[in-house]
């Protein structure tokens, strides 16, 4: 595999360990507007069964070429963080690998299409 840092925001260490740690993130659920997230879950209730295993991200074709991280993305969207998500989603190639590996059988391709529709298209 082409090695790259798995951290999506900033690499933490100056030394290259071959891996990184995501920066701690504070999500203020009181401030975040969850209406969009709820609407998305209403259209795709099965997303609630996600166990956050990260299989989708690990196999992702776009993730191997960029910092695109699908698990993080849909987790953040569910928490009401929408900023920059559409631009991230535009990296997905809809190849479908994530759907094949998801242990919960979540229709991830439909999820990508739904998120794109809700967060930016048209």
């Amino acid at each position, binding site marked *: 595999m082409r090695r790259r840092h798995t951290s999506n925001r900033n690499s933490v260490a100056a030394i290259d360990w071959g891996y990184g740690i995501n920066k701690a993130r504070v999500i203020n659920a009181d401030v975040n507007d969850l209406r969009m997230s709820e609407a998305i879950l209403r259209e795709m209730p099965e997303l609630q069964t996600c166990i956050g295993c990260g299989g989708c991200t690990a196999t992702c*074709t776009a993730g191997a070429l960029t910092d695109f991280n699908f698990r993080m993305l849909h987790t953040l969207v569910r928490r009401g963080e929408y900023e920059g998500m559409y631009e991230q989603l535009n990296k997905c190639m809809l190849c479908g690998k994530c759907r094949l590996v998801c242990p919960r059988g979540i229709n991830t391709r*439909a999820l990508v299409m739904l998120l794109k529709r809700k967060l930016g298209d048209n």
Partner: protein
Amino acid sequence: MRFFAPFCIPFIIGTAFLFAALAVKWGSWLYHLPRADKKLIGRNFFTLATPKAIWEVIRESLLHARIWRVNSLLGYMHTSLAFGWFLLILVGWIETTAYVGLRWVPLQGHVFFKYFAASAHLGHKPVFDFLMDLLLLFVLSGVAWAVAKRIVHRFMGMRRTTRHIVWDKLALSVLWFIFPIRLIAESITCAVHGGGGFLTGSIGTWLAGWVPRSTLYALYEPAWWVYSICLGLFFIAMPFSRYMHIFTEIPLIFLRQYKLRSGKKITSYDNFQVEACSRCGICIDPCQIQTDLGVNDIQSTYFLRDRRYHRLELSVLNNCFMCGRCEQVCPVGINLNTLRQNSRDKMRNVPNEKRYEYFTSVPVEKNSAQSKIGYFTGCMTHLTPGMKQAMERIFTATGESVWWADREGGVCCGRPLLLSGETDSARKMIDFNTRLIRESGITTLVTSCAICLKVFRDEYHLTGVELLHHSEYIERLLVKGSLKPARANDESFTYHDPCELGRGCGIYDAPRAVIASVGVLVEPEQTREMSLCCGSSLANTVIDDGQQLRVSRSAVDTLTATGAKTIVTACPLCKKALARGTSHNIRVKDLAEIVAERL
């Protein structure tokens, strides 16, 4: 002789309306054709394409040859209605000419000739009486079938028949009445004035014997009125109902002969395809979303209906494998997959120049060994390492030097985005990979993914590079003798045709030849052009995991009914999908794997 009576008015209005509506529809569709399509018409008009189209119109629009091939009862129904009605008009015209000589007679004169001839006491010509009665009986038998089909469709060997919209119901009901009422009107005329053939004449004589003359006179004009109203109503409903197909299939056949085609974007030509659908419902039965999942509103007949009346929903549009099984049986030959794809483009394509800018920094695999053969793994094969290893063993066994386009992963072929309607985005992938392949200098590109192959062949401009599926590549190696797998005469394999490979690329024989070289091939019941979909098609983004599994299980059942212990397929996605649907004692293998195993 005047060919007019007040009862003709509804008929005249209906006919005038129909012709006006047809002129508007055809006119605007033709006017809005893309320039290139108009040029094609111009170029092909005075060629053999025109007589060929005429012949096809006779065969398909009148005789419905293709429906006969699918189902002969249904074929008889369509032929008797279409060809029977046509003959009634034709023989009716000859009859009129035989009576009044070659002169202009208004349309209603031909249609209601029995009435005018009787009122003018023209005398009788028994030959025509007989012929016209025979034809009327022919059409009536078709109507009887149509009524029976509505009531018990199983009767016709169809599990399901299409549900209709209001215009259709109006037109359909009126259509059922037209010919029985014509029979009544003509019989009453015979009862009053005599004459008629074995049908109208006999009923007429019977009526004259049993019904008081005054009653017959009282019913005479009203019967013709009802007949005329039925015709008028039918003609008015026609352009808005499925019966528009009668007048749309004809230009469609001509345009198709002139080589017009539907494409990734909606064009005016699509109108001809969409409205040529007769909603016959033949496409419903082969659809696995109907048979395995019980979903009854997404099949091509409904998709075309919804598209035509501008009420298409994403949930209907996207709930389709685009497996092509329906297209295979459609008697009108409509390009159902293409239409579905360009509808998706219309509803989903988002031109976005900024998308996939990162492709410019994707590292490109160099062909440092100057290999002439390239191999494109594709996303899905990356998920089935067994296939990748098998291909590697085969390449090693032949000793050929092979350039791997994406050994560690690369950019998707673009087919999934195309199937989802994101045409412009897919283009970026196609451009990226085209450049990659061109710069490598290879002359043959092999892929073991049927999905990649389909888009390579259809969308990539790679002249000078031969595009091969691994089944074709392995077959060549076997023929050349550079691969010599051990053949097991006692091992049987069954083969699953991937939709994208079989119906998509027309490759049926190469995989079978490869299997035959390593063991015994046993064909499942539904095979080749009618093989089943594995259920995981990328084209369907609506059904959930459990539904995919159900489709896969039933496809597997068909395959294992052959008794074979190994299911062979030739697409990584089919392999994964079928493996999920099997029980433990059945193996699912790719073509390359069963060959590599025996090297």
